[in-house]
């Protein structure tokens, strides 16, 4: 089943087309990356999902049902523009956020203690928000996002302001929740994070989806058809023009561009015949490269 379906959704502010005829289908259980440069329309899209902004056109469905408050209560959303009531105490604010999502009483208390412990914040439970460090506030905000055990979690730039230790802590929790069936949507312009976590992505630029699909197949499509090889022995076999169109010698390895129609399999076979292979790697473009390439071409049009 689809966790989220965005069907021909458009939104404009004055002359600016923030989102243009966007289609997305995110299956339940996915870890999905919503990518794009600043101002691409990511946040507008999410705000439309949360009904904070009303779309001009199109239709949004959550778990196969029309977008309603009831359905949205099953979403945990961590906005990019986030803050907390500075004068409130940690436990009070979590109780409030839980109640906003319909979690009350003992259930709420139990979960709050559980999560405070998990994120090393118990001792801070009775402190005011303004006494907390920025990183702690971020973690607290994250607890507020997931306290009602949402089926879909939308995180807009979740790791900004977090140190590596806390980033890993949150990432682990996200993956753990995903393994239990929670659908995750990441919105970010930081590619490395996405590359490590997401299975499929959608790249948005100027309000339009310019690239979407499974990360693996996208990478394949953008493949440069190149390998990296390190070996002991003579490099003469690399001069075989039928197999190899060009190569480039680095200190201890070679970057090799395959000739057209040649598979990596053939290269390995040829290499094994001639030399002692110590390292073999298919060179894939990083998501960062794909991102830049796609954005610049779509902008060039």
């Amino acid at each position, binding site marked *: 089943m689809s966790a989220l379906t965005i069907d021909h959704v458009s939104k404009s502010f004055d002359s600016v087309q923030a989102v243009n005829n966007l289609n997305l289908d995110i299956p339940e259980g996915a870890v999905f990356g919503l990518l794009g440069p600043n101002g691409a329309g990511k946040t507008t899209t999410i705000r439309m999902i949360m009904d904070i902004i009303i779309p001009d056109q199109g239709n949004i469905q959550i778990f196969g049902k029309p977008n309603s408050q009831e359905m949205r209560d099953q979403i945990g959303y961590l906005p990019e523009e986030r803050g907390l009531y500075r004068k409130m105490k940690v436990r009070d604010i979590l109780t409030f956020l839980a109640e*906003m999502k319909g979690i009350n009483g003992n259930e709420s208390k139990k979960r709050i203690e559980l999560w405070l412990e998990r994120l090393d914040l118990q001792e801070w439970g009775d402190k005011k928000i303004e006494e907390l460090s920025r990183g702690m506030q971020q973690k607290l905000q994250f607890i507020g996002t997931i306290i009602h055990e949402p089926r879909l979690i939308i995180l807009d730039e979740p790791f900004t302001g977090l140190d590596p230790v806390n980033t890993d802590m949150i990432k682990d929790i996200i993956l753990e929740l995903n393994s239990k069936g929670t659908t995750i949507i990441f919105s970010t312009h930081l590619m490395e994070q996405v590359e490590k976590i997401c299975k499929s992505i959608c790249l948005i630029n100027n309000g339009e989806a310019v690239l979407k699909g499974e990360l693996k197949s996208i990478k394949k499509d953008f493949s440069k058809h190149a390998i990296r090889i390190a070996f002991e022995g003579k490099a003469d076999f690399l001069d075989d023009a039928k197999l190899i169109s060009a190569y480039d010698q680095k200190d201890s390895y070679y970057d090799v561009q395959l000739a057209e129609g040649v598979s990596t399999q053939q290269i390995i076979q040829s290499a094994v015949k001639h030399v002692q292979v110590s390292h073999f790697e298919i060179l894939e473009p990083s998501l960062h490269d794909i991102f830049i390439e796609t954005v610049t071409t779509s902008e060039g049009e």
Partner: protein
Amino acid sequence: MKKIWTIFKREYLTRVKSKGFILGTALTPLFIILVTIGPGLLMSLKTEDIKNIDIVDMSGIIYENLAHSLSDTTESGQRIYQFRKVETTPESVDSMKVALNASVDKDRIDAYIFIPGDIEEGNVAEYYSKNVSDFDENRNLRNVISRIVSDHRLEKSNIDPVLIKSLNKNIRLRTFKVTAGGEGKEDVGLSFAITFIMVMFLYMALIMYGAFVMRSVYEEKLSRVVEVIVSSCKPYQLMAGKILGIGAVGLTQYVVWAAVAGLLTLYSGVIIQSFSGSANPFPIPTIPISVLIYFIIFFVLGYLFYATIYAALGAMVNSDQDAQQLQFPAIMPIIFAFMFAFYIIKNPAGTMSQVASMISFFTPITMFTRISVQAPPFSEILLSIVILVMSLVFLIWLAGKIFRVGILMYGKRPTLPELLKWIRY
């Protein structure tokens, strides 16, 4: 509805539990008591000081009567004014004055009074002292001396001063307020005082709690809490929860104050007696139930009307500076209505008053003033309330639109055309 309740609860509890609220609620009545009763209490405290005043009486008619007329005593029963007659001749008046000035300067005497020989024709007496700003004392002395002089004149013309006094008696105008229930109790100016105080309270509530709403909205916006909240509820729910929560805070504060005021009026006699020693309980003012009910109606409607405006303004704010600039135009109609209330007290049934009480911006204050001064026909009151409620509904719709867009718009303050576009988003 549950979400409005959650927001309402948070808004109400965090405010009511704050030090600022507790102090403000407790200290305001204390402050009012100090300001209103304090000076009177201090004035009524009897002075322990004895005043030594020398009298230079060239006319020969004042001194004997002065001591007789100013016979106030201190707590211990001594006379406050200790007069001493100083004999002199017209030739040595100037040197006498020099000597007396020196006495005053060296605190041997507190003051001296110079009565010229022609006081009956010249109408001037002179008072010399280090402190000439005790108005109460100056007036006292002046009154006593004039009375002595005029009694003397009457006697000279063979007219009995007692007869004159009885012929000159003032007429007292007793006022009775006539209401729908018939002739009311005798009114001794309290009607005006109560109207004034209630209008004042209405005015303060509209300005103060309205500003709280505005502040609460823009603080939430500037601290970026707002998107976290509206991802769990509709923006109008946030707005409603806030307005109602702060309104409840205001109501709480007013109920506390009203209770204090009620207790004070009930025990005012006892309190004043215990302070001043004399039984002088001022009459307990009674407010007709109907006026009280209208007060509550206009308090609630007026608050909702202005709080909604303030909520929308708060959503447009992008800095503290913005907030100050935007607050002013919203306060203007309240101030205008308050000033207009003074005109209404004089002309409650005039055309101007009628018109002003139908304009929703002014209705809460102007219509309430009219009701408490001279109740207009019920149909007029009802009409003003209907207009107010209808414009309130429209305002809530409009403010909801502005609020929804405004709370997530950062950057510069919107212009009017931009605002109109927001309504269409």
